[in-house]
């Protein structure tokens, strides 16, 4: 994730988030959004959206339902016309290009296989549309089916396949004409949890086999985004809220929304920030002083949020140890491999997860927890969205 460092820092001002990644690979095409706005009637569903997916990279767009992820993807595919701004694929401005001239691959949630064509005909469709020779088709179709592990299913009809198999065929169909750019819109959402996990592994492997393929991956599932993506863009209400390397975005979310959406962080309201040694800073939370990383260089004396992931808390003997807080247990939930514990501290409801305990604390019991200051980041309080 070394290439991620350039865009970790997110502006805390009211300026829209602008994402761009650093390296440019020798081959493959980038996808570029330049200040793209999309409106439906009087409703603006994409606001000055700027983002670059570098050649050969996977960028995941995540965000709640209705945040404009699909709209952004469809703008690249050519099915929504931006009211302003430009879309680039490679060095080509495709903003006004018809979808069939954009040379992209697209995979959608419900597979959208052509029902009256056999699997091999589905995969051959794009090749035929591009006027490929018959012997090329005969060679490429089995290749693509083999790539997704569906070599044996060429003569079947889509209705004779399971959901996971249909999605594999949809991926093979999208890749058959060898597009530079692949657009995936919630490709795993219609699959059940177990198949989703194995498909996730396979998508990762597929990208290792096709390192020049540039992928825009839309999902509402943070696991998919964190597993696959080099960079993640977090969207809300048609705006890019945050953009960064997957790990750095997770560890140092630039704002409240990013912290909550990616990994359900606890955000403890703190005040009176005092810089310490290195990027360490100390803040007041309730009656105690907590230390954390001031990754975003928040100014001295400011109010902020302490972003603690549920798994960053450890039990401790007393609340007087450094970096510890005391609380009262509200709920305890056993989930097999973890215990989920909710407690109240300083007027906040805080979630923590721990490895399974033989004797978990009882509801109403007073507990003390602490966290490693190097694992926890201070996040600016976001003034724009309450």
């Amino acid at each position, binding site marked *: 994730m070394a290439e991620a460092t350039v865009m970790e820092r997110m502006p805390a001002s009211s300026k829209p988030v602008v994402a761009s990644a650093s390296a440019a690979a020798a081959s493959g095409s980038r996808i570029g959004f330049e200040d793209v706005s999309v409106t439906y009637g009087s409703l603006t569903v994409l606001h000055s959206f700027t983002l670059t997916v570098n050649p050969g990279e996977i960028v995941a767009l995540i965000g709640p339902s209705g945040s404009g992820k699909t709209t952004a993807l469809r703008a690249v595919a*050519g099915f929504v016309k931006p009211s302003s701004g430009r879309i680039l694929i490679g060095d080509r401005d495709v903003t006004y290009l018809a979808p069939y001239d954009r040379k992209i691959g*697209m995979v959608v949630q*419900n597979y959208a296989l052509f*029902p*009256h*064509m056999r699997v091999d005909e589905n995969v051959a*469709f794009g090749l035929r*549309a591009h006027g490929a020779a018959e012997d090329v088709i005969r060679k490429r179709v089995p290749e693509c089916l083999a790539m997704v592990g569906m070599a044996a299913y060429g003569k079947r009809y889509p209705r004779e396949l399971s959901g996971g198999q249909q999605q594999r065929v949809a991926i093979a*169909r*999208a890749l058959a004409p060898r597009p530079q750019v692949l657009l995936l819109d919630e490709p795993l959402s219609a699959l059940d949890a177990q198949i989703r996990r194995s498909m996730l592994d396979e998508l990762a492997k597929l990208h290792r086999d096709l390192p020049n393929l540039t992928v825009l991956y839309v999902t509402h599932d943070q696991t998919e985004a964190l597993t696959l993506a080099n960079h993640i863009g977090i969207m809300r209400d048609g705006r890019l809220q945050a953009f960064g390397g997957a790990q750095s975005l997770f560890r140092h979310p630039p704002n409240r929304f990013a912290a909550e959406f990616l990994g359900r962080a606890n955000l403890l309201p703190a005040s009176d920030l005092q810089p310490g040694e290195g990027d360490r800073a100390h803040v007041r939370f309730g009656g105690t002083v907590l230390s954390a990383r001031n990754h975003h260089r928040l100014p001295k004396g400011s109010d902020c949020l302490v972003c603690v992931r549920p798994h960053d808390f450890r039990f401790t003997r007393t609340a007087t140890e450094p970096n510890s807080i005391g609380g009262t247990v509200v709920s305890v939930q056993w989930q097999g491999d973890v215990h989920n514990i909710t407690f109240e501290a300083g007027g906040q409801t805080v979630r923590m997860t721990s490895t399974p305990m033989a004797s978990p604390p009882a509801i109403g019991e007073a507990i003390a927890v602490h966290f490693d200051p190097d694992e926890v980041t201070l996040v600016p309080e976001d003034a724009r969205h309450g």
Partner: protein
Amino acid sequence: MAEAAIAGPAPRTAPQSLWVVPPLLVLAVLFLYPLALIARASLGEEAPSFAAFEQVLKSGQFIDGLYHTVVIAISATAGCLVLGFILALVIAFVPFPGARLASRLIDTVIALPTFLVTLAFTFIYGSAGIINETLMHVLGLELPPINFLYSQWGVILAEVTVYTPFVMRPLLATFSLIDQAQIEVASSLGARPARIVRRIILPAALPALVAGGSLCLLLTVNEFGIVLFIGAKDVITLPLLIYSKAIQEFDYTTACVIAVVNVVLSLGLYTLYRIVVAHFGGKSAGVV
């Protein structure tokens, strides 16, 4: 609830199958009996014989009528299919304001009596219609320059106008079921609109086209009002021939012979229609 389910339905006083009797009775009185009368009449007034059949089926009038009926029905159906497919395609897939209104309008046309369109045609294309009047006035002609209405073509055009909605309705129903994502994916794979119509939309529309086309064929074979209203002298179809034999010439035997042929033709077409619909099975369910 559980008890009720175990107890099952209450015992009936009459077997379920008795319900079939009233509809059968109605069918017999209103349909089968008259049909039998016609069939009987076609076999002559005294001892039943096929003499009348032989005579009628060989007559130039009948052959001419059969020829016109078949040519008009097939041409009109083909016209309906082509026009209906194109119009339905535009209404369903080309976003334009008023697409919804247009499809409502089509339903309205289905509700109108068939001769109304023919009457309107006479006003527009007839020898004293708007177009001819204007042309005669502008060009200073003695005779109306446009005469296609009083020919086979006039009948075909009128039938196409009247029956195209019967093709469009199942087509629009089918088109609304086509997943928009399929069309978009096809487009992203490099398919231009013509290819999408040919390879995605047309195969999906096939059951609706076959069903709508068979219905059109059935309706146009039996069409009477339009042919009568157009009133082209040498365009006599079987239904018109039956009318003129029975009502104008009081030649009931001949009329009944032709009627029997017409019924056989219709039932044959209907059987074909059912076979085709059954062949497409569940795919066309609810559409036709």
